[in-house]
């Protein structure tokens, strides 16, 4: 479904202008002592939330900013 996303700089825009960057998992983990399993968890595993999720977006056809929004994955609506 068509999605609109509110960019902090450019305002509410067509979702296809943006690039999805995954759920917000926090900063990159420290390398020391990182087991393969913990690494895979950070890199590949997702919660796949069915509901509201905090996630990263990049305004590709716009200002070039990475930012987070809240979106309901069940309705595909941005949550203000």
């Amino acid at each position: 479904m068509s999605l609109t996303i509110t960019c902090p700089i450019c305002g509410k825009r067509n979702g296809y202008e943006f690039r999805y960057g995954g759920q917000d998992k926090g900063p990159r983990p420290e390398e020391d002592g990182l087991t393969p399993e913990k690494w895979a968890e950070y890199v590949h595993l997702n919660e796949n939330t069915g509901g509201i999720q905090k996630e990263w977006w990049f305004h590709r056809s716009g200002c070039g900013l990475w930012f987070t929004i809240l979106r309901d994955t069940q309705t595909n609506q941005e949550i203000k």
Partner: protein
Amino acid sequence: MNRLTHLPTLRIQPSKALSLTYNKKRLTGVEGDSVATALYANGIRIFSRSVKYHRPRGLYSLDGESSNCFMAVDGVPNTRTCTTLLKDGMTVNPQNVIGTPEHDWLFFLDYFGWAMPAGFYHRHFHRPYVLWPTFRKWIRKAAGFGNVSKNWEGGIYDELHLNTDVTVIGGGPAGMSAALAAANQGLRIVLIEGRPWLGGFFEYSPEPYTLDIPRYERARELAREIEKHPNIRWFCHTYLMGLYGNHQITAFQKGGEKDYFDERYIEVRSQSVVVATGCIERPLIFEHNERPGVMQVGCAHRLARTYGLLPGTKAVFSVGHDQGLEAALDLHQLGLKIPAVADIRFDGQNPDLVDRLNKSEIRYMRGWVAGKVYGHHQTSKITLRSTEGTREESYDCDVVVASAGHTPVSGPLIMAQAKLRFDLHTGFFLPHRLPGNVHPAGRLWGLTDPHAIECSGMMAGLKAAADCGAADDNRLKDLKEKLKELPGPERGTKLAISPGKPGKQFVCFDEDVTVKNIYQACDMGFDVPELNKRFTAAGTGPGQWGIPGHNLPLVISKYHADSTIPPMPTTIRPPMAPTLMATYAGKRHNIFKRTPAHEWQEKAHAIFRRVGVWKRARYFSKDYSCKTEIETVHQAVGIIDVSTLGKFRLFGPDALKALQRVYIGDMSTVKKGRVKYSAMCNDDGCLIDDGVVTLTAENDYYFTTSTGRAGTTVEWIRYHTRYDGWNFHLVNLTDAYGAINLAGPKARKVLSELTDDDLSNEAFPFTGYREMTLAGKIPARVMRLGFVGELSFEMHVSSSMTGYLWKCLMEAGKPFGIRPFGLEAQNVLRMQKGHVIIGQESEIRTTLHDLGMGGLWYKKPESKTVGAVALKQTKHQKDRLKLVGFKMVEPSDPKRAPKDGSIIVNDTIRGHVCTARYSFILNEAIGLALVEDKYAGIGTQLEIFEDGSDHQRLHAQVVKPPFYDIEGHRIRM
């Protein structure tokens, strides 16, 4: 056929004749006709044959809800003739018949309906299995409506992308009232209407709007207001295709005589949407309810009122709503003989209408309904039955006007994800949960009173205005009060099926699905509408929901005979009206970028290929081995346009930190005057990009990426630093700079012609970086690189200068035998050096170690470099595919390279050839391959299996790349 020519409601010009060819016969229609009405006027009654049983089908509705009226019009199969405006000279042909619709040789299939129960093709034809292909061929031939026209060109397909405040879907009284109400709040409105004119169900009705104004006059009054309102853009003959999230709609407009387009794709984004799509009729289900001559109320009425055609001579009505009674009265007035009007309802009628019917000496029968139609090809008689099925009466007639009730066109609401629920009073599926900023209005709610409809429309318009920040709460409140005093929604009939045999009672015309089929499917466990629809195919034909949509859940509900299970509607999916792909596609969309040196290469007879968004020169002659191009680089000097390389400036206090995060090497060693070759990996340690980096000033870096990564590098670097809050700036200079690479032993001599700078190997060694002015006026960044394995200078200059530089170099190089070379020559040259191209020598499971490039990785855990963890964890991992070099050996022809993509095998597949070519300079066939590490040892014999080789194997031996100039002297010359 004689037309009624003096009705004020006519939309035809009876005096303006248009010609058409139907089934090779020349016929005449008039301006304003639809194709279907023109045919009807010429006495055509059988329009098509049904898809399964080849039953004759005629005009049933005039709004394109079923495939009954499908014909091939001007080469377009499956055209809804009832909604297609007649144009002079049209060619119309029937489809899916052997013979003509009147005499179809496949008519006998109708007698085998018993052999085609619900889902019959799942239960038969597969035993014995050997016969299945034969049956399948037969099924394929039988299925489908029209034939595609292989050489159809079509006309002009326009596109319109609009932004507005409010979109109003539907140009009837509710929609027009909504549009005016919202427009008067100062908002911009887009209004779309399917029919070629505004007016909706008022448009042809002579019933009074007020005492002295008939409804059709009111429709024209509203239309005039719409047409002159500066805030409203209105589109007639425009069909809604989809209503999507965030109030986006798509629609297509059919071009009329005066339009420059044939069809036009319209996409509108708005703040709020009013859905005023009104109602269509719910078909009455009885025996042979689709026999030609049986038609809906609106069809019969509009044939007369809009097109001046009486539907026949003698008509029996079987209806369930007042609009049916109104039509009967009016058509009677206009000269149609009406022996009887059966009304499903026992009570609830407008007493005035009943009174008028009685006065007109039309037999009016309460609690009666059509039972069965007789007539081989066309209706000749009808049997009416009392709704409980105990009494019968028959009438001769050539037309049966039948309609069980109304059904709201709620498709747009369903597409907008509204939740619908069965409403006992109206018998409609009404929205009980609406998405935000979507406002249904008018007859959709079951309203039939003209003033209530307009009032509901105005309210919707004001609510939509409120969504756009232009609320008028007081007026909205007043309207709410007013609506309360007006008549509410009409009580709808719930009757699903008239008493009679279920075998020839059709629920879905497009797919020939009868009540019996629905029941059979229910028996088999498909007892919810969505499953039943899939099993019986009811509602999956071109008309989608139009004919069976409302009845299917009612019939299933009847099957269950359990009033605690409410009927559930099935889903409606876009496009609401079948839409030409030509219309969706619009104009051709061949969008690509040309490099700033494109024209110069074109002049040099380059053969271009699309590479991502670019067009790039792949060859400069039809010799695809590129012998001359390659030899020129080895022996003299070649020139190649590498402008598509990604080019970036990264600067600021934290620039180095950002580089350390994404580059696998130690970027703190990058210094002025030198380029450093390095690579980027993804988190899996897979090589995704390589290029060179140099320092141009303090904390100011310039770097290149591969062509494919130019578009994503900014987001990549910013993504991987998004939590860090570092202070750096990143500028994509890819389009700002062109780049030309000069390669070959005479490259220095050529470049010296353009500059006085010292280009000697001592002053400007391999991996050196210099900024200089070329040809006296071109500021250039020049670097010594070695991708193709010969002495090479790469020049990055502003795009506007690139073409000029190309010209200067070509002129300067002439005495040295300069030639342009393309991507294929570059491909061979770099392969000889063992240099990889990402995606060609690597897969997503290939790490930097697998490519033998692990040496580029520098451990710097504090940088949290992307890919470093995976590189650490896979460094000593076994059982991986490794990149190796190989050469062809006896008994194979050592000069014949295997084709790229051939596989390396023994008992099983062990790897594949990435790139392999005959090397002119080495006079042997060499290549790069990914093989399991067990087979990657130098000297290992490889067997190569090429497609189509009939299990003959080629033989190769693993050797260590590079193949050419192993010490690298030539790039350091």
